[in-house]
């Protein structure tokens, strides 16, 4: 019975799209006024995704909102989505954090391992961050080895964390040249609704901030290692890196910056993720990346940097 019900629903949706299509071919004019009203009241039903106008003509749908100084989901240009954070829900990881930016869901889990440090850098431990965009998070990703886009995201996140000096790798060393911690941070995107980088940084910082290292005793003669899990020391962290991403919508007079873009907005602004990511830590700029999208004037860049900074305060 349930399937029947569901199926019927989809079919009915199609017929209504058909009807509107006919109407539109007659007219080609549309006022988004009432559509706006409808998304505002029923935004939690995610109806906007199935909105006939959006399905038929996504660009015009998008621009007609932008012209009226509002985004399709009812936000202002500089408004963020709600952020939800859930810490240490996963028992099998050392620490974990689940972060939701609207629909975007990201989970970071850390694993602690021991290894000998690198010969060229005997006093440092390891911090290995990987971002995995698994195929279940979006129809854009296919199973198999990580795509170019996934590798870029992984690189960006790891760069931001390394540049921000959030963690001093020297703190991860136990015995010089003999033993050091290896901190594996695996970030998994479960639902990709735009702005993955910001969510990844939030998840990563949250799980590293709650991390504590067990005490290790190392006998240099017998090379015996003993770990005491009851006696833990929390990991020293420096500041709190925050990344803020914007999509740049190329408008005729002036490009428009959209804070915290969702997938639809990212697509409308050139695809492949957010266009500019600015990250701050402790009042220092620790990363800025502009990729694709519209062009940006210097004032706007400054504005973006300022907006990102305000967010960290």
């Amino acid at each position, binding site marked *: 019975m349930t399937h029947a019900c569901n199926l019927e629903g989809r079919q009915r949706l199609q017929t209504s799209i058909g009807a*509107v299509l006919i*109407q539109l071919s007659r007219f080609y004019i549309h006022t988004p006024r009432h559509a706006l009203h409808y998304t505002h009241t029923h935004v939690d039903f995610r109806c906007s995704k*199935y909105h006939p106008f959006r399905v038929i003509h996504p660009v015009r749908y998008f621009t007609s909102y932008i012209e009226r100084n509002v985004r399709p989901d009812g936000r202002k240009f500089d408004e963020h989505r709600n952020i939800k954070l859930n810490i240490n829900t*996963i028992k*099998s990881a050392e620490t974990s954090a689940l972060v939701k930016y609207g629909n975007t869901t990201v989970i970071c889990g850390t694993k602690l391992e021991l290894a000998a440090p690198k010969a060229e850098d005997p006093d440092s431990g390891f911090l*290995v961050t990987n971002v995995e965009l698994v195929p279940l998070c979006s129809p854009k990703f296919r199973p198999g*080895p990580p795509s170019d886009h996934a590798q870029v995201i992984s690189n960006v996140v790891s760069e931001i964390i390394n540049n921000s000096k959030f963690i001093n790798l020297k703190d991860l060393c136990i015995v010089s040249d003999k033993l050091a911690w290896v901190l594996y941070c695996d970030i998994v995107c479960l639902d990709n609704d735009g702005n993955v980088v910001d969510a990844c940084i939030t998840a990563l910082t949250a799980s590293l901030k709650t991390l504590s290292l067990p005490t290790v005793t190392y006998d240099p003669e017998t090379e015996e290692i003993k770990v005491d899990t009851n006696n833990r020391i929390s990991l020293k962290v420096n500041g709190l890196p925050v990344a803020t991403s914007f999509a740049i919508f190329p408008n005729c007079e002036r490009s428009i910056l959209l804070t915290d873009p969702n997938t639809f907005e990212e697509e409308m602004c050139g695809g492949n993720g957010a266009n500019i990511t600015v990250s701050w830590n402790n009042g220092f700029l620790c990363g800025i990346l502009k990729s694709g999208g519209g062009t940006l004037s210097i004032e706007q860049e400054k504005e973006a940097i300022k907006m990102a900074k305000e967010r960290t305060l």
Partner: protein
Amino acid sequence: MPLDYRRFNGPDDSVSYKRFTPDFLKSYEELLGDLLEKNNLKDEQASDEAQRVFAETDTISQAKGSAYVEIKNTKVVCSVFDPREIPHQNEFSHLGQIYCEVKFAPFSCSSQRRPPAPDAEDKALSEALRQAIEPAVCRHLFPNYQIDVFAYIIENDGSCLAAAINAAGLALTDAAVPMYDLITASSMAILDDKMFVVPNEEEEELAMKSQESKDINHGVITLSMLSELSQITSFIQIGSLETDCVIKAMDILEKECKELVPNIQKVVVRNVIKNVKRQQILHESAKEMEEILDEKYNLWQKSLKAKSYLCFSLSFFSLLA
């Protein structure tokens, strides 16, 4: 093993620190003793296994259908995408195909970190999941097309295959893929005369690696079934069990699967109600839009008529002049 250039790799020889903790060195007997002690405390309040399942649909906004299932500490998300043409195939296939992929998160297991690339266990689970859900789907309705089912195990605390099957069944329902019946799955670990229904990781592990000197029953069974049709879609057993024991376990698991059905049904009903509401809103908005457009159309036509009348009369007058 070849180096994975697409990811960041840690040092090759890193080992989990848990190997150096006193717990790691415990022998099999000690572990078993611990477990039994713990269970004795727990079994005071006999718990209903079916109640421990938490399920939810529509967790992933980008997917056609998705579900999240939690059994004990095991957490699985599953998403289903639109059918697409079967890639790399020139022959026409009369039945649709189902492609399954099960993946463990690198941090999902409490011991060692899992490598991010799929290993043998991932592949075996993917195959088992496909076997379990294939009989439930009306595959003749989408010939030459393939439905992708992705399951991701966020945390593994035993019975992860059962959780993945339950999640996949719900996700398929959410995606409105026609199916014959709701699919439910349950698993059991057996150690000697003890049977752990829906085992956790500890119980599963102990049941799997029994001491070879003793000739006892040990093993893990996962069973999935279509309860309404009373058909078993998959039955997977590992270990060493006597026939009587297998049959006894089967009866219990069958009952367990049946008890799970109302829970799953509740989730599905909730999902349907939500969809119906969403649809009503869409319908209303479409109607509203049509009205507005109609209004405009009439207005335009009226003005056109007026204009053409004007033009006509103008030209008429000019002719006269």
